[in-house]
C-alpha cells in the first residue's frame, strides 16, 4: 500500500477513488435537498449559495441529484465488473489449467465473441433482456466475460510454467492443490489490476446505457440518465450536462489512475 502512494498517479488515484467511494456511500445522506423536490421559482439556475451546482428544468437541486445518483452509478460499475470478472476468470482459469482441446475450443469461442465490439454486444444483450439497471448490469458483465477470460488465462499460463509449479507437480501434489495454492495466488494480481481499470469502463458503459434510455429509468438520478434528460436544456443551463458528465469522467478517472498505480506497485520489475 505504501508503494501505491509513492507516485503522483497513485496519490491522485487514491484521493479521487476515496472521494468517489465516499460519495457512493454517503451521498444520499449528505444531499442538501431532496433530489426530487421541485423549486419552481429557481429553475435552470447556475451555481449560487442556495444551489451550489445550480438547478434543473424543474428547479431540482443538481448537487443533491448528483449525490443521490452516486450509489447507483458507482455500484453499477462495481457490480457489473465483479460479475464479469468472476465469470471471465472462471472460464479463463479453466481453459488455462485444462490446456489442450478444452483450451483451444474455449479460446476460439472467446476470440469470436471478442470480435463484437463491447458496446454493440451490450446493446444486443440489453435488447434481449430488456432495459433497466439490473439487466443492463448483467449485459455489461456478459460483454466483459470474454475479455476477462483471455486475460486470466494468460495470467494462469504465465504462472503455470514457473519452476515452483513444476516442483509441486514433481512432488506429486494434487491438481486442486496446484491450482488453488500454487497457480491462483500468483495469477491474481494481473486480474485484479485489469478488474480495477474495467470498473472505470463499466461506469462509462453504464452511463452510456442510461443515456440511451436502456439502463436506469426516470426518475432515477443515475448520472448518465441525468445527462440524457438535461440535453434538451443544455444550451439554457450548461451546468445540467456538465456536472453529471464531469462526475462520470472523474469517477472513471479515479479507477483508471488507481488501477495503473496498482499495476506499477505490483510489477516486480519496479519502476516502469
Amino acid at each position: 500500500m505504501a508503494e501505491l502512494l509513492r507516485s503522483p498517479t497513485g496519490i491522485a488515484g487514491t484521493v479521487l477513488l476515496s472521494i468517489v467511494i465516499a460519495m457512493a456511500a454517503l451521498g444520499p445522506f449528505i444531499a442538501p435537498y431532496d433530489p426530487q423536490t421541485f423549486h419552481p421559482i429557481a429553475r435552470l439556475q447556475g451555481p449560487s449559495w442556495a444551489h451550489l451546482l445550480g438547478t434543473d428544468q424543474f428547479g431540482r437541486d443538481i448537487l443533491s441529484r448528483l449525490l443521490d445518483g452516486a450509489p447507483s452509478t458507482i455500484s453499477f460499475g462495481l457490480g457489473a465488473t465483479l460479475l464479469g470478472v468472476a465469470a471471465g476468470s472462471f472460464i479463463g482459469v479453466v481453459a488455462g489449467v485444462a490446456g489442450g482441446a478444452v483450451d483451444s475450443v474455449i479460446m476460439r469461442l472467446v476470440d469470436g465473441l471478442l470480435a463484437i465490439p463491447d458496446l454493440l454486444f451490450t446493446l444486443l444483450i440489453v435488447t434481449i433482456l430488456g432495459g433497466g439497471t439490473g439487466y443492463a448490469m448483467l449485459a455489461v458483465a456478459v460483454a466483459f466475460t470474454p475479455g476477462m477470460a483471455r486475460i486470466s488465462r494468460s495470467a494462469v499460463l504465465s504462472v503455470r510454467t514457473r519452476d515452483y509449479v513444476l516442483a509441486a507437480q514433481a512432488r506429486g501434489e494434487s491438481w486442486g492443490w496446484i491450482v488453488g495454492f500454487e497457480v491462483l495466488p500468483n495469477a491474481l494480481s494481473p486480474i485484479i489490476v485489469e478488474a480495477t481499470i474495467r470498473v472505470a469502463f463499466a461506469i462509462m458503459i453504464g452511463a452510456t446505457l442510461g443515456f440511451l434510455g436502456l439502463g436506469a429509468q426516470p426518475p432515477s438520478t443515475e448520472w448518465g440518465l441525468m445527462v440524457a434528460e438535461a440535453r434538451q436544456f443544455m444550451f439554457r443551463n450548461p451546468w445540467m450536462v456538465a456536472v453529471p458528465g464531469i462526475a462520470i469522467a472523474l469517477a472513471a478517472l479515479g479507477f483508471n489512475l488507481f488501477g495503473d498505480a496498482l499495476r506499477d506497485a505490483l510489477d516486480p520489475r519496479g519502476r516502469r
Partner: protein
Amino acid sequence: MATNDAPVLRIDGYGLSYQTRSGPVRALSDISLNISHGRTLGLVGESGSGKSSMAYSVMRYLAPNAREDGGRILLEGEDLRTLSPAAIARIRGRRAAMVFQDPSTSLNPAMTLGDQITEVLERHRGLDRPAARAEGEAALARTGILRPADMMRRYPHQASGGEKQRVVIATAFACQPALIVFDEPTTALDTITAQGILELFRILQTETGVSALYISHDLALVSRVADDVAVIHDGRIVETGAPGEIFSAPRNTYTKALIAAVPRPDRWMGVPPPAVDAVPVLAADRIGVLYGAPSRLAQRLGIKGRPHWGARNVSLSVRPGELLGIVGESGSGKSTIAKVLAGLIDFGGGVSFEGRDFRKRKDFDSAYRRAVQIVFQHPDASLNPRQTIGRILARPLIIYGLAPRAERPARVRALLERVRLPAEFAERYPHQLSGGEKQRVAIARAFAAEPELVICDEITAALDVSVQASVAELLMDLQRETGTACLFITHDLNLVRQLAHRIAVMQDGLLVDIFDRNGAEDPDRAQYTRALLDAVPKPAGVKPPTPFEATL
C-alpha cells in the same frame, strides 16, 4: 607490441555513486587503472561489484541518477569527463567501441546486420553507401564469417548467437578504435562458440593493436585473455597484477576467497565413489522425448508440425550414493532428461527404479516422487513467492506423511540448520532471501523428502562464483550425510569434474559419451567431449596454458 608507453586509457581516482530513495549508494571508489597500447586489462568482479558501472563510465553512458565523485578518465590523454555530449558521440564507435554481453538483444531486430555495420562507417569514416558496404563486408570477412555479403542481408534472428557476436565485434573494430570495452562478451554463448569468439578477439587484437578493457565475472576466462587483471569488489580495486601472479599468489583476502571458489578440475570435492558393482538405484532405458509432435486432431487435419527430439535413445544408470554429472550445451537435452526423471513430461522408453519399472509419466506414483527429488536452476522461480519458507519446507513432510503435525516446526528448523540457514528463516518469504539462500531452501526442500536420488538441474548456474562454491560444498556435505545419489546437470565442465564420479556428455538430444572422472584425458574420448574439454578455460596455474587451437 607495447612500443608506446603512454597509456591508451588511464583512470585516475575515479568515483561514482547512485542517488536512491534511501540516499546515495557508492558504486565506485577511487578507481585507478592504466591500459597501454595493445594490452588487455581484465576487470573481474561478482554481480554488484561495480564492474559494469566502470565500463559504462568509460563509455560516458551514465544512468540519470549517477553522480560522479571526482577523478579523471583519460582516453589517449584527453579527459572524457570534460567533453561535450557531441564530442563524446564522435568518440564512441570511432576511438572507443563496445562489445556487449548478449548479441541477441544488442542488435536491432528490425534492421539488417549489414545496415548495423555500415551506419557506423558512414557516420565516423564519412564513407558513402557503396564504400561502406564494401568495407562492412571486408570487416565481416575479417571476423571469420564465411559469406559476408549474404550475412549483410540477414536480420539478427536469421543468424546464430556466435555469428551475431561476430557482427558486433566487426562493428566494434570497424573504425579501428584505440580502445574496445568488452562487457562479458561470451557469457550468453555456448562454451565452444565462446572459445571461437575469444580466439577471434586474440587474432584481431594482434592485427590491430587495439587496447581492451575486458569485463567478466569469470576469473578463469580472464586469466586466459588478459595481460593484466584487476579484481574489483564493492566498487574498489582490491588487487591488480599479471594473471599468473594473482592466481598463484593472491595477496588480498577477497581475491584469495574468490580464487578458492573458482572451480578447478584438479581439486576433488566429492564423496567417495560407490562400489563399481553396486546395483543401480535408477536406470533409464532408451529414453526418448519428441517435442512439438502434432496432436491427434492436427494429424487428422493433415497439419504437420516441426517436431524435434529433445532426447533420443538415452540410457544411463545411477548407483546408490553416486554423483553422475550430465554436461552439454543449451539445447543438448540434459534438462529434458531431468524433467523426464522428475515426472514432468511424457516420454518413450522406460525408467526402472529400485526394481520397479515405469513406462510412462502417469506410472510415477507418490513413492517414486518422494524418492526422486529435483532442484531447479533459478532459485527465484522455484519457490512460491506467496508462501513462507516454513510452509514450503513443511510441504514434503505433509504429502509424504513424514512427520505428524506437532513435529513439523521442529523438522523445518532442523532442515534449515542442515543447509546452514538460521531457524528464523521459517517465518520469511522468498523475496527476503538472497539468491544463494533461496537455493539452499530449494535444496532443503528436496532433502526433506528423504530421497534416494536428487536431480540438480544447473543449480549453480544462476549464482555468483563464491556462492556457487558454497552451494556445491553444501550438496557434497548432504550427500556424505545421507548417502543419497545425485544427478548433477550442468554446462560447467570444471565444476562437474570436481564433484562427479562419472560424467555423461549430451549433444543434440543424444548421449554421446559417458566416462569415469579419471578418464577425462583418455585418448578414446568422443570427439565432442574432447572439443568441450578443450574449449573450457581452465584457471591459470592449473596446467601450463595451452595455446588456443583453431576449431573453426
